[in-house]
């Protein structure tokens, strides 16, 4: 490594409303290295990426590329200077052939504006361009698929094509946004090999992902983020064992009150052999899981493992391609999301999904839209007992609440319909440890009142502390199941998150 700094990020800050997604972040990328930016979901990695590559304006701080201040330049201007990125969700020009994708992305390599387009002679350049296209495709191993429509490629191949697109723009610094998301182990290690080959060809690489396993193995250095702040920086082997990093990934809070044990009861939710596909990705493959009455069941697993998809399938927000879901003994096939809510299901989704320009009271009342007015009055009392802070803010717009209060509102709104089963997706995401614990304690209290809960949670330690039983999901399949108390001490849970 020459030690020359290609990219310098200095005290970068980006806020949304009052919430700082990235706060005072500084790091640099050295020429010829592969730097990994890692951190749990919601840590601010993608926001950092979007600011660095010009898709978002920073609220403060500077970005320097090869010593030049490039803060706030448009993405295409940065690409021209040699900084090219990929996207979190696969983006290729799906209606074009693979070769044409590369040609389009080779825009910067070709010369001429509209005049040359009309009057220039296409013949001379054509063969040169075709040669370049072939060269790039061979380099990434897609040469045989040049004539195929990009949209028809397998998912893993599309992700590789995406990298090839970026390469066609001839970057000096390549920024990869979650290149391993949705890949299985052999696919992601092949992708990492490709990234190494790209580096060996002289391209500096900055990659973000939460696949700690792959990242730790493949990157030269890691920068770890959590809550918008830099947590650690250094060689992967050192970073992975830092207590702060372990806590960021697995969470803290094992000292919360454990729930009372429950007797074996009938199933509230029974999911069997569930299959869900998004386009070409199989998000769930034959997943089965049960929640019994009075239980808190935790569903843990790495990002992209299929946790959120499972909850969405249960509440009817994504179509199911196979398998069966039963709620209180009733088959949910063909039942609309609205009818599922009436049937006793409440879904408190990731990202909270509150109504920002309505008051706290209105948000709560909408949660009980189908109930009698006097019944919702008693529910309101119940919610305010759980979250006294909401009662102080009834006439405030929900959008003006703090992150923790919004989460409370989302949970409160969900229990307004007096559900039998609560699906809870990442309730502590972005919350401070103190608030996360408060949320957890509230869940235990709700559960003591008879509510069954299916909990998806990044903070595995916390989730396993309050759950009765837990499932570990990996690549859309249940890898492990059992009483939460046993899984708490199981090394394989740590492996799923940290790969250590």
């Amino acid at each position: 490594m020459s030690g020359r700094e290609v990219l310098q990020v200095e005290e970068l800050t980006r806020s949304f409303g009052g919430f700082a997604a990235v706060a005072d972040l500084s790091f640099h990328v050295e020429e010829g290295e592969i730097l990994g930016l890692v951190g749990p979901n919601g840590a601010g990695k993608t926001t950092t990426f979007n600011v660095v590559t010009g898709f978002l304006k920073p609220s403060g701080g500077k970005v320097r590329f090869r010593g030049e201040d490039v803060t706030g330049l448009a993405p295409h201007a940065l690409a021209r200077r040699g900084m090219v990125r990929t996207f979190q969700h696969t983006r290729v020009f799906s209606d074009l052939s693979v070769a044409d994708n590369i040609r389009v992305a080779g825009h910067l390599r070709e010369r001429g504006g509209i005049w040359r387009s009309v009057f220039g002679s296409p013949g001379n350049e054509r063969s040169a361009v075709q040669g370049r296209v072939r060269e790039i495709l061979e380099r990434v191993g897609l040469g045989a698929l040049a004539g195929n429509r990009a949209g028809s490629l397998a998912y893993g191949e599309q992700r590789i094509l995406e990298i090839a697109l970026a390469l066609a723009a001839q970057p000096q610094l390549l920024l990869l946004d979650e290149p391993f998301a949705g890949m299985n182990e052999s696919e992601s290690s092949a992708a990492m090999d490709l990234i190494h080959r790209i580096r060996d060809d002289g391209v500096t690489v900055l990659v973000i992902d939460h696949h700690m396993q792959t990242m730790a193995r493949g990157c030269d250095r890691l920068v770890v983020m959590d809550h918008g702040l830099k947590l650690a920086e250094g060689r992967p082997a050192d970073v992975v064992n830092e207590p702060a990093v372990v806590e960021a990934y697995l969470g803290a809070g094992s000292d919360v009150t454990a729930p009372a044990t429950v007797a074996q009861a009938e199933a509230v939710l029974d999911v069997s052999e569930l299959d869900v596909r998004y386009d070409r990705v199989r998000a769930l493959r034959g997943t089965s899981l049960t929640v019994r009455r009075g239980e808190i069941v935790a569903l843990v697993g790495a990002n992209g493992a299929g946790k959120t998809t499972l909850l969405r399938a249960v509440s009817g927000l994504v179509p199911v391609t196979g398998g069966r879901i039963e709620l209180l003994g009733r088959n949910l096939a063909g039942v609309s999301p609205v009818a599922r809510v009436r049937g006793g299901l409440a879904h408190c989704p990731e990202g909270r999904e509150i109504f920002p320009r309505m008051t706290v009271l209105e948000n709560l009342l909408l949660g009980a839209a189908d109930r009698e007015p006097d019944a919702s009055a008693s529910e309101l009392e119940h919610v305010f007992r759980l979250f006294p802070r909401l009662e102080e803010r009834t006439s405030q717009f929900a959008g003006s609440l703090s992150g923790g209060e919004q989460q409370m509102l989302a949970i409160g709104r969900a229990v307004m319909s007096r559900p039998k089963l609560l699906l809870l997706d990442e309730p502590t995401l972005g919350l401070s440890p103190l608030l996360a614990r408060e949320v957890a304690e509230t869940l235990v209290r709700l559960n003591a009142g008879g509510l069954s809960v299916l909990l998806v949670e990044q903070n595995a330690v916390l989730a396993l502390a309050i759950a009765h039983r837990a499932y570990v999901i990996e690549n859309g399949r249940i890898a492990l199941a059992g009483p939460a108390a046993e899984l708490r001490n199981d090394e394989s849970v740590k492996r799923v998150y940290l790969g250590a």
Partner: protein
Amino acid sequence: MRAASRAEGRLGSAERGGADLARTRLTWVLGLAVAALAIAAPHVFTSIAARHLLVLIGINIVLVASLDLLIGGAGLLSLGHAAFMGVGAYASALLVKAGQPFAVGLGAGLLAGALAGLLVGLPALRLKGHYFSVVTFIVGIIITILMTNLVDLTRGPMGLTGIPFAKVDLFGWHHTFKTIVFKVGYYYLVLAFAALVLLLRWRLGRSRFGRALTAVKGDENLAESVGIATYRVKLTAFTVAAAIAGLAGSLYAHYTAFISPDSFTFVHSFDLFVMNLLGGAGTVAGPIIGPVFLTALSSGLKGLSPALAHVVHGTVLILVIVALPTGIAGGVKRAAEALRGRRR
């Protein structure tokens, strides 16, 4: 399994090579046939009414081919195209009435269209999706209001009468196109421009600029990230399309010898849009099929009142959107691919 799919891919591209050659040959044959038909048309349809329709089809081809640069090329659903035609028509008519030669009028139409396109594109292209369509639609109407209100310049709703016929003075050959009765000559003039614009559209589609447009249409963020200045590319396309529409306006003004704001209303913009979608946006044949089909349709509806003709137009439009989202040319292409697929 992976190896099998790769082998299939390679096989696919080899077969595609053969199919490409056959298709190129077919394209040439079809192209020549269409050209021959276009040249023979005024001698097959000899009535004045039919020849009038032929000239209008030619002008509409120029307009739709330029609109297709936006719709088929960049996915920009512009709904104010007739207004740019109007700007070009007025610019040309006024200059030639003031004594300038026809060629200057044509050039002025082109420039005026380009200028108007630039001015409209600057704010409108800041919007995404259908908000862009809505704004082009509204701005198109503003332009017709201006034509009506700038009475000193345009004579308002009365329109401009007595616009001089096109005079060509080329290497000692003089000709005045007295288009009220003699339409064939002017038809060939329009046809030449139509061929030129179609060629231009085709060249642009296969150029670096055209690929940048395709990228914008496919995914604007991705296009930005590989270094395409999307706003500038869109603005260039919008300006070029408006310039060609201005040229078409000039051709129209010196053909009818009379223009008024009524000739360039949103209904005409809308018709052009339908022609583009109906023919097939982003296809080579689309800008020919659409105008021929729809101009013939509206002449077939001449028996009806103009109001009912518009009702039919609106209905056709909605049906096209629902049943044939890729237009006639796109539909034929898909059907052919489906047939080939079955044979394989």
